[in-house]
Structures are given as structure tokens and as C-alpha cells.
């Protein structure tokens, strides 16, 4: 078994399973020296160091966002921005909260995987799977590796596209990520290649560990097709306070990209992610995005429709339970004629949780023949839960067809009553109604993910996750 000895356990999990030998960790807090040290540890080219420093300067000058969720609890000075994977503190299975253990059990996660997910065990056998997948992929020219490795092995391709979709100046947390990024996936699909199986970052990340400031760059060349999946239904247990990722997708003409996320961070994580795609002519970009975990998520997957005839679709689901705030949404920016977008958002608030839909739909002058729709539905399951909807619809072209609808409501007692009269318990009935509400999302998932996701939602509904 190719269990790599240096990846043992760690409070922080930046590692990627390559041969770069990191010697140190940075001190807590972020200074110019920290940024320089990270770049030095990684032996990066000068341009990347310059980029990180530019981002760092911008990060300093940018105020904290005053909108969305409450970010005041994040103590950015206490974070260790880079640490060698093997130097994490040893933790024991006993330290893992009962709630997480119980969830693993209920989801039927294998023993070895549980420990990995909890950050207390070594990786498990998925590495074998990953390597065989990687071999298959490389035969057809598909690149699928860690982002740091991508920078080293494909310097020109990397530099051509990196930060072209999300510049460091985009927002404070994109600037932070740009300054200290580490880990994430680098994907390149060559012209005309259709990747037959979803690329599952889960396998790759199992082998190489995930990161707090991961950076993913996906380039899909002309006529190519790929489905990328990140995350998994099991809660990722981490003591990291902050997860600030950046994902950039470039869909070149006539390509098709689907990016599926099922993210279930444990409930103390601030998940502040910038995800954006450029859709060139006649390409299709789809974000399929579920957010069930974290304390606060602020994430608005965006698609800039830059080429004529491009298509965008965002289907997102947010579930907020006790103490959680899911501030999520989507953006479609129509910059070219005859582009289409469809946004569907479903959210569920329960046990005092709060969901916010925040979206933008923009059609610029000259983008004629645009067809766009936005649909947001929210379910509030109990007293004290809350749901907000803030859609921005800015149309500057008369030849646009745009519709937007939103509803907020509670579970239909009629439906529950009907199901109970057919012999279901109240819990089962409620569950079924919720699953029906989310079906537009789950039907887009690969089967095994859909099954796990339904199971997860069921557990959430039963309140058995605490």
C-alpha cells in the first residue's frame, strides 16, 4: 500500500502528495515575511511571489466586508498560514466530537476513512484508486493534480490562466487566498477530450490532504467536457476557523464543465469562497452546489458569459441548522449575445438557522437575445429560523427575456398529513417532503452522491446530528 509516511495527521492539512519537502511552518499571523516564507518553502518562481505580495498589499488595504454574515469572530492573527503537513499536532480519535463520530456511523463511512476525515488518521486506500484514475486520465492527456504541482509542471499554461478569472483585488478573502494559497486542484482537459468519469477531488484530496486556503484552477479546452466533484457528504472535521478558497474555471469555446460541490464543514468553520467561471462562446458551465455545514458560508458561484451562445446553470442548496448562517447565491453576468442562464436556489432553515439568497443577474448593453431565469425557494421549518432573499436584476439591454420568482414557506401540513395517513410517521413524512423539495438538486448528482446526500438530509431533519 502506498501509504505515505509523512502524511500522518494534522490540525492543518495543506499537504499534497508530491516530493517537495517542506521544512517549516510560519508563525501565527500574517506579515509580509509570512508570504515570502510560504513562497520560499514551495520554491516558487519570482512571478508567483510578486503575485502573492501584490495580493497581500491589497488584502491589507481592503476593509472587512460589512454585509452578509458576522465576520467579527474571526481572529486572523491567530491563524498559522502555512504549516508542513506532518508537523500538525497529534490528535486522537477520542478528541473528535461525538456528533461527528455519530454522523460517520450513520452515514456508513468506513472506519479508516472516518479517521482520515476527522483529521486523526492516515489516509486510507483511496490513493490506489486515485493513482489508477490518474493513469487513465493521463493516457487521454487530462491533467489532474495539486495546484502547487501544476505550477511546477505546467508553468506556462498555469501562468496564462491563473488569477485571470478571480483577480486578487476581487474581494478581501480572494486577496487573502491569493497571498497565502496552498493546495487545491489543477485540471486541464485538452481540446475535444471528453472525460468519461467525474473527476473526484475527494480521491485526490484523500491522497494529498485538503487545505485551508486552497486554490483550484480548471481549464477546459475547446470542445472538451468534464465533470469535477469536490467535497463529500461526511462532515469534514477541522479546528481551522477559516476556509477561504478560490476556484477559477475557464470554459473555452464549445466546451462543457460541470462543477459539483457537496461541502459539509463542521459547524465552527467560516467558509468564505470565491468561485467563478468564464464561459466562452457556445460553452456550458454548471455549478451544482450544496452547503450544509460550516458556521457561516458566504459563497456565490458566478458565471461570466463572455462568448456568444454560452450557457450557465447554477443549482444550489443550502441547509442551515442551529447556529448556522448560509449566505449563498449565484451570479450570472451576461456579456455576450444569445447567452442563457438559469439559477435555481433551494434553502432550508431549521432550529434557528438562517439562510440568505444573494444573487445577481446582469445583462450589459449589446448582449442581445439573452434568456435568463432565477428561481429561489426557501423552506422554514420552525420558529426562530430565518430566510432572506436579495436578488439583484440589472438589465441594460431591451432584447432580454428575464424571469425571477421566489417563494418562502413552511412545510405543507396537507402533504405531511397525506403521507401520515398512508402510514408514515411524522418524521418520515416531513423527510419525504424535504427530499421532494430538494429533488431538483439531488437528481443532478451522480447516484452514489445522491444517496449519501439524501441520507445526510434525513439525518439533519431528524435532528440526530445534534
Amino acid at each position, binding site marked *: 500500500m502506498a501509504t505515505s509516511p509523512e502524511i500522518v495527521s494534522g490540525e492543518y492539512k495543506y499537504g499534497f502528495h508530491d516530493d517537495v519537502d517542506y521544512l517549516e511552518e510560519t508563525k501565527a499571523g500574517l506579515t509580509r515575511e509570512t508570504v515570502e516564507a510560504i513562497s520560499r518553502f514551495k520554491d516558487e518562481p519570482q512571478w508567483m511571489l510578486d503575485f502573492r505580495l501584490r495580493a497581500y498589499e491589497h488584502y491589507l488595504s481592503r476593509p472587512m466586508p460589512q454585509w452578509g454574515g458576522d465576520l467579527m469572530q474571526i481572529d486572523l492573527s491567530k491563524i498559522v498560514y502555512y504549516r508542513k503537513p506532518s508537523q500538525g499536532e497529534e490528535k486522537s480519535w477520542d478528541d473528535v466530537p461525538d456528533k461527528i463520530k455519530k454522523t460517520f456511523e450513520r452515514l456508513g463511512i468506513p472506519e479508516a476513512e472516518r479517521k482520515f476525515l476527522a483529521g486523526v488518521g492516515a489516509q486510507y486506500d483511496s490513493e490506489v484508486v486515485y493513482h489508477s484514475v490518474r493513469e487513465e486520465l493521463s493516457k487521454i492527456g487530462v491533467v489532474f493534480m495539486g495546484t502547487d504541482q501544476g505550477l511546477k509542471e505546467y508553468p506556462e499554461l498555469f501562468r496564462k490562466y491563473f488569477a485571470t478569472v478571480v483577480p486578487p483585488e476581487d474581494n478581501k478573502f480572494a486577496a487573502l487566498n491569493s497571498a497565502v494559497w496552498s493546495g487545491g486542484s489543477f485540471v486541464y482537459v485538452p481540446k475535444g477530450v471528453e472525460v468519461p468519469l467525474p473527476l473526484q477531488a475527494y480521491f485526490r484530496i484523500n491522497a494529498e490532504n485538503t487545505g485551508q486556503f486552497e486554490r483550484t484552477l480548471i481549464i477546459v479546452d475547446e470542445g472538451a467536457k468534464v465533470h469535477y466533484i469536490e467535497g463529500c457528504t461526511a462532515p469534514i472535521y477541522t479546528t481551522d476557523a477559516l476556509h477561504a478558497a478560490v476556484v477559477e474555471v475557464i470554459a473555452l469555446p464549445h466546451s462543457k464543465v460541470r462543477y459539483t460541490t457537496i461541502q459539509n464543514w463542521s459547524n465552527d468553520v467560516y467558509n468564505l469562497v470565491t468561485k467563478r467561471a468564464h464561459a466562452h462562446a457556445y460553452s456550458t458551465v454548471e455549478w451544482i452546489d450544496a452547503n450544509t455545514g460550516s458556521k457561516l458560508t458566504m459563497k456565490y458561484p458566478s458565471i461570466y458569459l463572455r462568448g456568444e451562445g454560452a450557457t450557465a446553470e447554477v443549482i444550489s442548496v443550502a441547509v442551515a441548522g442551529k447556529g448556522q448562517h448560509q449566505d449563498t447565491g449565484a451570479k450570472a453576468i451576461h456579456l455576450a449575445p444569445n447567452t442563457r442562464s438559469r439559477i435555481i436556489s433551494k434553502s432550508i*432553515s431549521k432550529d434557528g438557522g438562517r439562510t440568505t439568497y444573494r444573487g445577481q443577474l446582469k445583462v450589459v448593453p449589446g448582449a442581445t437575445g439573452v434568456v435568463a431565469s432565477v428561481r429561489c425557494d426557501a423552506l422554514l421549518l420552525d420558529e426562530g429560523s430565518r430566510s432572506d*432573499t436579495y436578488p439583484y436584476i440589472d438589465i441594460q439591454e*431591451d432584447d432580454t427575456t428575464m424571469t425571477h420568482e421566489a417563494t*418562502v414557506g*413552511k412545510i405543507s401540513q396537507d402533504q405531511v398529513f397525506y403521507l401520515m395517513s398512508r402510514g408514515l410517521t411524522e418524521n418520515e413524512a416531513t423527510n419525504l417532503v424535504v427530499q421532494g423539495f430538494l429533488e431538483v438538486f439531488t437528481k443532478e448528482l451522480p447516484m452514489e452522491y445522491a444517496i449519501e446526500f439524501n441520507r445526510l438530509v434525513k439525518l439533519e431533519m431528524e435532528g440526530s446530528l445534534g
Partner: protein
Amino acid sequence: MTDIAQGAPAAAPKGNAASAAPAAARQGPLDLTLSFVDGAAVRGTAGAAADPDWLLADRLEGLRAFEALPIETNQLYTTYIDLRNAHLAAARPYAGPAAVSPGAGAAKLLPEGAAAYAEIRENQIAALVLSAEARDAGLILETLAQTQTRDPELLRKLVEGGCALPENDKLAQMTRALWSGGLLIHVPDGVRLERPIVLRWSVGAPDTALLTRTIISLGEDAEVSVVEEQVSADASAPISTDAQAFFAGTTEAVIGAGSTLSFAGLQDFSLRQIAFQHRSTVLARGATVRWALAQLGCRVVRSRIDNRLEGDGSTVEQAEIVFGSADQLFDLTSYTRQVGRDTTGNLLSKAVLADRSRAYMKGLATIEHSAHGTDSFLGEFAMLLSKQARSVAIPSLEIDQPDCRRVAHASSVGPIDETQLFYLESRGLDPDEARKAIVLGYLEPVVARVPLESAQDRLRELLEAKWDARTVARPAAAAVA
């Protein structure tokens, strides 16, 4: 370009050269160029009106808020405000409250079918007349100056304890500080007037500023409808003048239990007018407010409506239409706060935008935790008639109580429907007639809500005239800027 209009008109007083000059250089979207808002102006206004001390204090409180507040306090909307076409540095407020013209009470001034009539021409009350029937029923329609003389305690109660202008709104607080005239409508308990009260504002002399409040108080189980027409006084003013006129007006309505207020507002000021409107209501148990608002005129109009549904079973029905042309900007915000149980909010905005006109439709419905059994709908729709027109819709919801009947919003934007056009053309209408029929039909549901038939007809005429003017003016549209 539009910004050059700021070039200081001859009338600009010297004392304000400092504030006018930078505005001429480059005026940003958030720049409020008004130069007369200060403590001296507030004291001057209070002095001219012989205000009691409490009223001066209230004005100074408004000034403090004005000075402290940003132009837009709601972060949701900070990127959607644009005052670049409001060049107000030379505007001067009228000194003292409007004087009532001799003969203003003549019965012959009362329009047919109206219960009462007030006409304000610039700073002059040209008509103030009640039908005998309305007077006998106990209706009060008077200037706020008259209220102060007749019943100072009532005025104090209405100003200090009424529905209050929004505390977080800089422009509303400016009106609170500097209003120099206004009207009171009071309908006593149990009085239901069948005929509407008509208010007519005809203002717009260059470089003037009129700040005014309209206070409406409905007792319990009362009912009244109000038609407010806002038109340009001065159709004869040379169109070549760059000097703008400024109007800031409020409607502040306290609606008692079981009462109904129907309010139709018809804004057709000239394109040299800049207007800020604030309309606020507080609704008691079982009360209803029906807004039917048409926005046709002004270079820039910024309107804000606050509905506060405090009483159980209270209802707001709000319908607003916009017909824009040239480079008009309609900046419309509405806040509906549902507090009581079983309240209903039904809010609809429809815009038709030609030329380079723009509409920002910002609606926020807040369902508070106490608001069980809410029914709330918010719809914002736009029809774009030109490539340069722009529509922004931000229909937002904040829901803190899951026990609701319905909470939804909807929005759509599109050009004239080709199928409808084809159908009408196939019936023999020429393309322009067909387009006109579709546009007017699109706005008709709101027109039909105006309570007075003659006002309905007038609104239809105005819409038609605007359509025709748009069609004719189209090739020469650039000349308007």
C-alpha cells in the same frame, strides 16, 4: 453630455460659489449638490413660520440626522443611487410657509366629484376648499400653519408622535428640518367619504426648492381616498434653461383601526424637476392602505415608501407604474414591514422604459417574528423599449417567521412581446399603434386603481401623450440632453 448643465447659472448667489464650483468639475453619483441645508436655514425657516420651541427642536434633530447620515444607509442599495443629473447648487427654498390666496375657499374651485380640493402653486395656496357635505362630516383639510393656530397640540401630536419620517433616511430628515409648508387631512372616527380629496401641486420655477409635508390622519372605521397630482407650474419657462427646480414632499399617514386610505399619486413634473418623495404609513388593526402611484415626470425622482403593518389583519395594496423617456431616472424604494398577525402585503411595480431612461426598483418586505400568518407578494416588472434603457429590480425578502400563508416575489424584464404584437398587427393595427396598445395595456391594471374617474382619464391621457411624444421626439432625442 449631461454634466455640463451644472455650469453656474447667472442666478447662483456668490456665497455658494465654493460648493457649486467642485460640483461643476465632476459630480459623483452620491453627491447631493443642495447648498442651503444648514443651521441658519433651519432657524430662518422656523422663524419665518413662527414655530414653537418644540418644532424648532424637531427641525434641528432632523438637521443633525441629515448631517450624520450617508445618502443611502441601506447597504443593499448603495450601488444603485445616481444623483449626477441633479444640479441643485443654485436652488433656494421659499422663505416661510405658503400664503393662502384670497378667494382660495371659493366653492367654484372645487372639481366635480371631489369632496375637497387643495391647489398649491409654487409657494401659494391657490385653492383650499371643502364641499359642504365633507365639512359637515367633520373632514379637516387645512395647511399645517392653520393647524398650528387652530390646534397647536394636535400639530405637535402629529409631528412628534405620528408615523414619523424614516430615521435612517438623509433626505427625509432634510425635509423634517426644512419643511416650510404642508397640509393636514384629518378624517374623524366613523367618517367614510365616498368622494375623493384632490391635492394638486403645480411647482417648478427654476432654482427654487419647495419642501413640504402632507400629514394624513384617519381615526377608527374611517375611509377616504386622496388623489394627488403633481405637475409642472411653468410650462412656459424656456426649455433652454439649465436651471432645475427641487421638490421634496412627504405623505405621512396614520391609519386607525378598521380604516382605509386609498391614495393615488400622479407625478408629471417637468424634465427640469428633481423630486424626493417620502411616503410613510402606520396601520392599526384591520386598517388598509391602497397606493396607486404613477411616475411620469422629473429628470431624477427618488421615492421611498414605508409601510408599517402593525395592527393584526392590516393590509397594504401598492401598485406603482413608471413610464420613462429621455434620460429620466426613477429611483424607487419601498419598505414593507409586517409586524402584526395575518397581515397582507401586495406590492406591484411596473416600468416601461424608453430612450435612455432608467428605473431602479428596490423593494424589501420584512416579515417580523411576531407576524404569523403573513401573506406577502412583491412583484417588479419592466418592459424595455430601447437599447439604452435600463431596468434594475431588487425585490428582497427578510423572513423571520415561518408561519406564513404565502411569501413570494417575482420579477421579469423583457421587450414588447412579439406574439402580442403580431396578433394586433394581424388585426389591422399599424406597428406603432399595436405597440402603444400593448404598453398602455401593460400599465392599465394600475391606472384602474386610481380612485377618481376623472383622474383615471387624466392619467390615461398623460400616458398616451407621453407615448406619442416619445415616438415623435425619437429622432431628436439627443437634443433633450
